[in-house]
């Protein structure tokens, strides 16, 4: 009897942890920094954390789909740079709106190409995207002859820096993206397909799901969200630098997705968790920097918190006596 009760308690805790664990860690981090540093606990700074988390948070949506479907895309950083320089170079010809749209479209096409390589040529996703990581970066260099593209277009810059009713535009954009992502994942059959393919591709194939098509769409979505991120970040920076844009972005995004509770290897995941995880990563960097911590301590602290957070996140498996 006691056994069952404690078992039930464990299950309950595990379930609640799944929903609120990351939120708890975020609150913890915010509380610690707020108590240590008066500059951290300002409204302006909290908004700033939101604003700059969009970079990871938006790109993460596509990656979350990708990881849920059992794949992986490590070309996102290079893709971000390539579409950034390509799209922003169109501004003089087709104007800001056209350039922004074409950036997103081009990114989606690149994602689509990744998807075709992976499904039709049957090259594993990791390798295709590893190859693309080199290729996109090289193309970005080649296309610009390695001169950064400076962005002066109002519309483009507005996407990263503008405000509606005193709310930063990237935050609004992020919320729209999350709403879209949520509807797609939870309210459409496609969302169920993604999870099904990630959980068991063979079973999904037998049950009549066009697995290849699902995977291609997923990679296209990765590209789509990378395109949006690319516009946001290059607007924040006011330029698109082929060598520096998106360096290490792939790992930041994957980290956020995994920290958010999506399991590498496929299956279900959580967009809410991803959102919170992106905030955690940004808040951590921001807090450490405000406390005037040197790069090396920043490195050490970020790494430790990351491992700690993921380990805590895994508690639910331990509680349930499962392995991932």
């Amino acid at each position: 009897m006691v056994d069952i009760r404690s078992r039930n308690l464990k299950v309950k805790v595990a379930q609640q942890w799944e929903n609120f664990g990351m939120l708890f860690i975020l609150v913890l981090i915010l509380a610690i920094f707020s108590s240590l540093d008066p500059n951290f606990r300002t409204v302006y700074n909290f908004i700033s954390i939101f604003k700059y988390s969009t970079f990871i948070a938006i790109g993460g949506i596509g990656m979350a789909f990708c990881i849920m479907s059992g794949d992986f895309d490590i070309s996102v950083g290079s893709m971000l740079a390539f579409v950034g320089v390509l799209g922003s170079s169109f501004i003089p010809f087709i104007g800001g709106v056209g350039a922004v749209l074409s950036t997103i479209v081009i990114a989606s096409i690149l994602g689509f190409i990744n998807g075709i390589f992976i499904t039709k040529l049957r090259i594993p996703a990791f390798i295709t995207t590893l190859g693309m990581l080199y290729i996109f970066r090289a193309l970005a260099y080649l296309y610009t002859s390695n001169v950064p593209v400076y962005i002066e277009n109002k519309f483009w810059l507005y996407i990263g820096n503008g405000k509606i009713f005193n709310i930063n535009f990237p935050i609004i954009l992020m919320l729209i993206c999350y709403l879209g992502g949520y509807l797609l994942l939870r309210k459409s059959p496609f969302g169920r397909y993604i999870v099904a393919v990630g959980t068991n591709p063979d079973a999904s194939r037998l049950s009549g799901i066009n697995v290849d098509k699902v995977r291609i769409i997923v990679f296209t979505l990765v590209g789509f969200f990378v395109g949006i991120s690319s516009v946001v970040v290059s607007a924040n920076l006011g330029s698109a630098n082929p060598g520096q844009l998106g360096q290490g972005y792939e790992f930041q995004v994957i980290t956020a997705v995994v920290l958010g509770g999506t399991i590498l290897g496929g299956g279900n995941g959580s967009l809410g968790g991803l959102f919170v995880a992106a905030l955690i990563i940004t808040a951590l960097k921001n807090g450490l920097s405000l406390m005037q911590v040197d790069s090396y301590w920043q490195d050490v602290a970020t790494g430790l918190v990351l491992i700690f957070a993921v380990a805590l996140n895994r508690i639910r498996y331990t509680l349930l006596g499962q392995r991932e």
Partner: protein
Amino acid sequence: MIKFLKLYERFGIFIFIILGSIFLAIASPNFLQTNTILNIIAQGTYGAIVGFGMTFAITSGGFDLSVAAVMGLTSVFLSLLIPVLGIPLAIIISLLVASSVGLVNGLIITKLNVNPLITTLAMMTIIRGVSLLVAGGRQIVISEKMFSIIGTGFLAGIPIPIIIMVVLFIFMFFTMYHSPFGRHVSAVGSNESAARISGLNVDLIKIMVFVLVAFTAGVAGVIRTSQTLIGIPTMSPGFELVAITVTILGGTSLAGGRGNIWGTLFAAIFISMIYYGLNLLNVQIFFQMLSVGTVLIIALFIDGARNRYLESVRAKGIKV
């Protein structure tokens, strides 16, 4: 045909090397020279050595992104320890330090149940931070000139790094294919739960794999440090991707269970050849990235086609 394909599995990348060599020999008069070729192989040794470790990690279904950071840590410890302990002891302790990072990786992965990718990514930043802290944020010059022999010396006309690589290759080859440990690593990689059920100590095997990777990174760190005689806390940024590229290009399956040590060796030399060779032609660095990416995709495409062909042959009932 089938025999050829069997051979291709092991030596496929060798074909790329030959094609590349022919091209470079025509394009550059300086390519076919003993010095150049020895240098190309020597510059491939770091990728190969760490690639050997990475091959084990990927075969076991894992991953290690912390290798470059471990190289830096080794480098810092060497530069600090050599003046105090002398060269041999300093090397041994630095390698122990490097291996202990692998131990920590392994423990976090198995005992805290954290994904290898995230663990080693986090450890990468932690170790780099620690290296910088230990070094006080500086590059530390090593004044013991004797130490440079390891990286720059020759034995019977062959650069010592190559000899180190060959020795490690032989060791890794036998560990992978002719030892119980190698079989266990493959078993864990191809089906972890089955391996667990059949009584293997999966956690221990995984931990040992990560220790092995970190050890190889340590060896590469020792060689590189001895070449420059500087303790470099931020050594070889981005080297983790090189090591992974080499391993995958060599034909080690990402799904785990199937490692290819030969392939890793040749792939490392091939990548070194691309970079070295295209530099001989004064080609810009972008083309090297472009070539590596393209070769990766082509090689793996051929690999996939070959696998499908073999499958179809098997389906016809021919034993392969």
